[in-house]
């Protein structure tokens, strides 16, 4: 079979099975393999910060230059959620290796990305 780029649509159920740390490790491991992930439920802002931190630790400059990540902001917190310090629910997010995935355009309703194999050598 001809080799291509894998895009995994990852369900909320799969993500909910994992702890926060496992979720971040899972994402980094898959993206480093060259996969593009579309997460049904994205990451909270504190998880995204940890993802950036771990991405920086894993960059090796020849095979992995980091990630491209796009998603919609967390849902607004209700008054009750704010009182109890609960965070808004994260929404659909696309994450991939920065040498393959590039965001073209985004607005409140559409995120447009392209997958460009060999972009780094362009």
């Amino acid at each position, binding site marked *: 079979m001809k080799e291509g780029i894998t895009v995994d649509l990852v369900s909320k159920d799969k993500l909910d099975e994992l702890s926060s740390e496992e979720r971040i490790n899972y994402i980094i491991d898959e993206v480093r393999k060259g996969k593009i992930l579309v997460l049904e439920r994205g990451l909270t*802002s504190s998880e995204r910060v940890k993802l950036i931190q771990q991405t920086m*630790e894993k*960059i090796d*400059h020849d095979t992995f230059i980091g*990630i491209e990540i796009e998603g919609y902001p967390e849902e607004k917190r209700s008054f009750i959620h704010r009182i109890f310090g609960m*965070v808004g629910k994260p929404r659909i997010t696309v994450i991939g290796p*920065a040498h393959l995935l590039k965001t073209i355009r985004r607005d409140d309703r559409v995120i447009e990305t392209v997958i460009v194999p060999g972009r780094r050598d362009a």
Partner: protein
Amino acid sequence: MGFHFSSLARIIQLLFGKKHARIGIYGAPNVGKTTLANRIAMDLAGEVVGTVSDVPHETRRAKTKKNLKIENGTSSLTIDIVDTPGIATKVDYMEFVRNYGIDEEEARRRAKEATEGVIEAIRWLDNVDGVLLVMDSTEDPFTQVNVTILGNLEARNLPVIIAANKIDMETSSPATIKSAFPQHPVVPISALTGHNMQALYSKMIEHFGKRKKRRWIK
């Protein structure tokens, strides 16, 4: 047991607000963080904090300038500023080679230091009382870096002021930043020319001098 003056000062601070705050200057690479840090340090102490460059990730280690006093009529606030390295989700040494003519060995070193700088900037979030989030008002503000930093600050209950920088540029649109993040104070400035800095200082006294209600997150 005696009642210490420091305890009294602490109670006064809790009741009436902060007089000394450590402020982190955050943002994506090349939005003008160091230019702003230099502007503040020059205005308040006649010194600069770091070197400014068009090459991204010029600041790769956090730099601090302490005891800068902002005054506005009857109010004042003493701040320590921390100029942090730009936060990014990717660092490609080839960009330094291709776009800025830096030789490969130097570009690789620079890229490695840049990744360490991002980690250091994130770690500093645990040690600041407030954040000046710098955005380039000539660019789309709705980036993952901006959204992630803001979300994180909200979760920590850390006060933030958005400095909509580069308003000296013809294509700047601070109004776009205001409409993208209406829940946060936005002050349009030019760190390069110093335009509107007094408005930023007044907002800093008002916003960062408030009582501290910090929430720690893991």
